């Protein structure tokens, strides 16, 4: 065998191995989804989809059990929207500052710091939220307990921030230099260039950053379970305790009888979560592709 053919063979193998890895990752996702469907669907033999999605009470271990996840969906949405309201403005502003304004030294320091924030385990963030943030919020608003949706939102905002900042910063840095030069040549000030030209050109990337940040928030479990109080009621304000979809699965899976209705209901919640994150990631992907055009 000539060295040339050997090299070709090697290349062929590497190529196929990479292809296989790629295919596998998709297959895994499909298998997970099929598994969720198989385990979750048995719930709908005794329960209508409408009762499940829009039922107002979640008493899974009572007799007869009630599997209404509307309070859980509302809980997840409230915490997520709250976290987005906090982390998106701060995250985007931080990304603009790092990419456009900060001097080089500061920029490197800030980037490293934000990446470090992503490395803190969620249980640690949850612990800090429970011990320090909860009592503080309780005293600030004079409410009976500090374990509320707002506490969850603030805690999760910290976890979404690294994702938002780093992806938005990439998008801003990717804006061609000529745009900035053209803007300055037209007599725009630094602020006008940053806000009207660069931020606008990077908008699809920023939307993607926000969506991925939100995806992280809605799937987060541990921190949320520790700080939101987990009361399964439909919240009327952000200062009330809520129970999220993820915390419900984590808290109850250990006790549910395998193969029973409760077990199936938890898997059905998994399906709902999967669909939500799938939609969010889908939107993010669409915007990312638009930004690459």
């Amino acid at each position, binding site marked *: 065998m000539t060295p040339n053919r050997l090299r070709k063979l090697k290349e062929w193998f590497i190529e196929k191995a990479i292809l296989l890895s790629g295919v596998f990752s998709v297959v895994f996702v499909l298998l997970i989804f099929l598994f969720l469907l198989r385990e979750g669907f048995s719930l709908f033999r005794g329960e209508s989809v409408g009762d499940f999605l829009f039922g107002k*009470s979640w008493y899974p271990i009572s007799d007869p059990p009630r599997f209404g996840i509307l309070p859980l969906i509302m809980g997840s949405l409230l915490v997520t929207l709250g976290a987005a309201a906090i982390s998106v403005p701060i995250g985007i502003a931080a990304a603009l500052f790092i990419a456009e304004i900060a001097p080089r030294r500061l920029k490197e320091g800030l980037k490293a710091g934000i990446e470090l924030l992503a490395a803190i385990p969620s249980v640690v963030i949850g612990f800090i939220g429970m011990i320090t943030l909860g009592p503080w919020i309780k005293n600030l608003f004079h409410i009976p307990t500090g374990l509320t949706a707002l506490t969850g939102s603030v805690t999760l905002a910290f976890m979404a921030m690294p994702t938002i900042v780093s*992806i938005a910063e990439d998008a801003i840095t990717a804006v061609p230099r000529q745009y900035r030069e053209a803007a300055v040549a037209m007599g725009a000030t630094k602020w006008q260039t940053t806000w009207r030209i660069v931020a606008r050109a990077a908008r699809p990337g920023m939307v993607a950053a926000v969506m991925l940040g939100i995806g992280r928030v809605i799937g987060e479990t541990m921190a949320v379970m520790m700080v939101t109080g*987990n009361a399964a009621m439909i919240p009327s304000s952000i200062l009330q*305790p809520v129970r999220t979809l993820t915390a419900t699965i984590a808290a109850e899976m250990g006790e549910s009888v395998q*193969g029973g209705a409760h077990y199936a209901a938890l898997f059905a919640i998994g399906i709902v979560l999967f669909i939500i994150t799938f939609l969010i990631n889908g939107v993010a992907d669409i915007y990312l592709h638009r930004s690459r055009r």
Partner: protein
Amino acid sequence: MAKKRWVIPGALFCLAAFLVQGGCSRENRQASSLQIKGSDTMVNLGQAWAEAFMKKAPSVSVAVTGGGSGTGIAALLSKTCDIAELSRELKPEEIAMAKEKGFDPKQITVALDGLAVVVHPANPLSQLTMEQLADIFSGRVTNWKEIGGSDLPIVVLSREVNSGTHVYFKEHVLRGGDKESQAEFAANALMLPSSQAIADEVDQNPGAVGYYGMGYISPREKALAVAKDAASPYVQPTIDNVVSQAYPISRPLLMVTRGQPQGLVADFLGFVLSPEGQKIVVEIDFVPVKKI
């Protein structure tokens, strides 16, 4: 996109985790080892028994893990453990599933646990009846002043539904042992993941009320004296009162085996029920099955 970079290592990790897990469970099934799994309430107790037992029989290894009573019974059914620890009695469907798998689950009471109802030390109340507790925890009473306390909204704390403690409290306090009752925890009750989390919240919240095993009682929380009804005396949650059954909220802690215990399982249970084993129960702040 950063996400895609992690796909290959991620897939490899999953595969590795899968293989490792398969390997471990096979290793643990040696003849002279004992797997105990179940109730989080009982983990420390089980661990103490295991250590004392292994000191007496050095060739045996006993491993104790938690996860909740339901996790324990699930493991017993799938034969990944030899003894399940439960802080509640078996549910009828669990017994049925065991029979389906071909064995009759044997429940043995190995210790008792009193559940203390605790409030912040600043709370002026120090005693309540069972009926008042049911009113508070099911949300019929929402302010302390309605039952003679200060004007403060009540913050109800409960364990999560994966906890045997939660189930016991609902059946015996909220429903008063009445099987027909439909009483539930108040929808706005905070569900906390551990007894320690309940203690932490009670420590810093003057309006809070929660429950946990009496081993957790500390000076930073005030345990209430409880009366069966308005005519009965109020009783403090102490070991003596639980043994004499004067304290109304106490429950058995169980070990469940596949069929009649045999061999090592029987040896271990024998040790647990011996005076030496029951002394360990007291050391871990639970209540022995019989007076020692």
